[in-house]
């Protein structure tokens, strides 16, 4: 709700909102993926 109210296609800070979103999502997903990858590797070489 808050996001929809604050971000609008013409608002100058919209790219900032996208940037934060990309960073947050990227960190969370990549972290999950890389930890899973590490875990899989450690299981492979155990």
């Amino acid at each position, binding site marked *: 709700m808050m996001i929809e109210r604050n*971000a609008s296609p013409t608002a100058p800070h919209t790219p900032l909102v996208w940037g934060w*979103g990309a*960073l*947050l999502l990227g960190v969370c*997903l990549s972290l999950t*993926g890389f930890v*899973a990858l590490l*875990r*899989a590797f450690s299981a492979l070489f155990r």
Partner: protein
Amino acid sequence: MWPDFLAGWIRLRTQWRGFELPLLASPLLPAAFIGTLAGEQRIVVGCLLGFGASLLAARRLRRGRLGDARFAAWIMAVGTGLAGFMGAGLGFFALVLAAGAFFGTRHLFAALPEHVPPPAPPPPPPAAIVQARARLARVMAVADARGDARLRIAASAVQDAVEELAGRPDRLTAVQPFLSMQVDGLERIAARLANGATPPPELTPLLDDFTTAARDRHERIRRDESAALALHVQHLTERLRAAGY
């Protein structure tokens, strides 16, 4: 300059909307592959569920309907949570990552245009109403051609009753005999008059009777609706009182 650039960027992002998600979730694929080689089913299932959720969310985002970004964010949260819990074995921390994925997706797709799906077309009126409209239109055409004001008034009163019924098809069965009689009667009178018949003196009071009966019917439909509303209001008031509000 800046608004133009932003508008262009939004157009580009709208065009490619959703493809970022599988791209960001792509490390889950080699993890699933290595997990398969290691024979760790839990890792494989978690990673595949996480990647599958990103594909599902992307598909939902591509549709671009109102509320799709919110739904995609929930899918991403569930997928990331599952991948974190099962694939990465992060335990409670998977919930934090799921929350991050949710808010990340919400922010990433904020302000991208979503269209509202067009409302469903209203159901077509019952065949009886369509026929009655067409027949009454023919009667009115005859009345206009002859300059017969009484026939025109009678047909228009019946037309009003028909239009009132068009919005309430559930009442049509009860009123059907009355409607058929009125429309049939007017149609026959109009046909005879069109064929050159001289109107008998009884026709004028008969048309007045048609008009009065149709207006009464129209009024009765409204009265019944008002009575039903009054009953509903009384019922609701009593229920509220009984509930102690």
